[in-house]
């Protein structure tokens, strides 16, 4: 029982953290198109 709570908490942590990484990456690649190429 406690094990599933532990796994759930760990998964939520990484979903939030990697979601933020994806947000930053989307901004970066959006900027690349405005800057005219990858930098």
């Amino acid at each position, binding site marked *: *029982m*406690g*094990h599933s*709570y*532990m796994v*759930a*908490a*760990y998964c*939520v*942590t990484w979903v*939030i*953290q990697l979601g*933020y*990484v994806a947000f*930053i990456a989307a*901004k*970066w690649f959006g*900027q690349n198109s*405005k*800057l005219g190429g990858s930098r």
Partner: protein
Amino acid sequence: MKKLLAAVVAIGVIALMAWGFYQAMYVAPTDAAQGPAGRIFYYHVPHGMLCYLFFTVNFVASVLVLAWRRNYPGRALAADAWALSGAQVGVVFCSVVLITGPIWGRPVWGIWWTWDARLTTTLVLWLIYVSYLLVRRFAVGSEMQTLAAVLAVFGALDMPINYLANRLWRTQHPSPVFGGDPDAGLKDPRMLHAFGWNVLAWAVWGIFLLVIRVVVERRAQRIAGSEAEAALAAD
């Protein structure tokens, strides 16, 4: 060269995260009273500690924005990038705290949430910085950065209240890991090591995200500046 350096740093951060995970899941003994759910502590508490760090970055940068905005607009713009990035990374870490806390509370306390001083002030802290980000997103005009910086300075007042909440008042939330009740805290050195490694790993991860976010925001500022110059030239 920059890309190579970023790749080396990223690999180092991932290796540190993996080591922290190994320590928390396999080296630290299972807490006798809490069972496996007790291991949530190794990522809930570091996130709680580190959201103070990132909100402090936001506070210091916001003070600098207010100090430099008239005489050093270039520096104020750089400070604004740090302020925004500190608030965003802080909200990410605080969100993890607010979600993993109830997931720990359900098996250990038998309830998801209670309106005690520590939990409530943490929710208020999160709401303050979400409102800061919403002001930045939706306010228009040249005074947006000043308005956001003032909000950040006042918002930071909740940090000491939140920190002291389970020291000053009787709360459902456990005592502080350090500097709390003599009976509280980590007794087993393996637990202490696992906790230390996870604080370090999440700190390095968070600072890595913060620096990348600042770089992206500085690029956004340069693009906005170029677009404004182009628009003026077109007129």
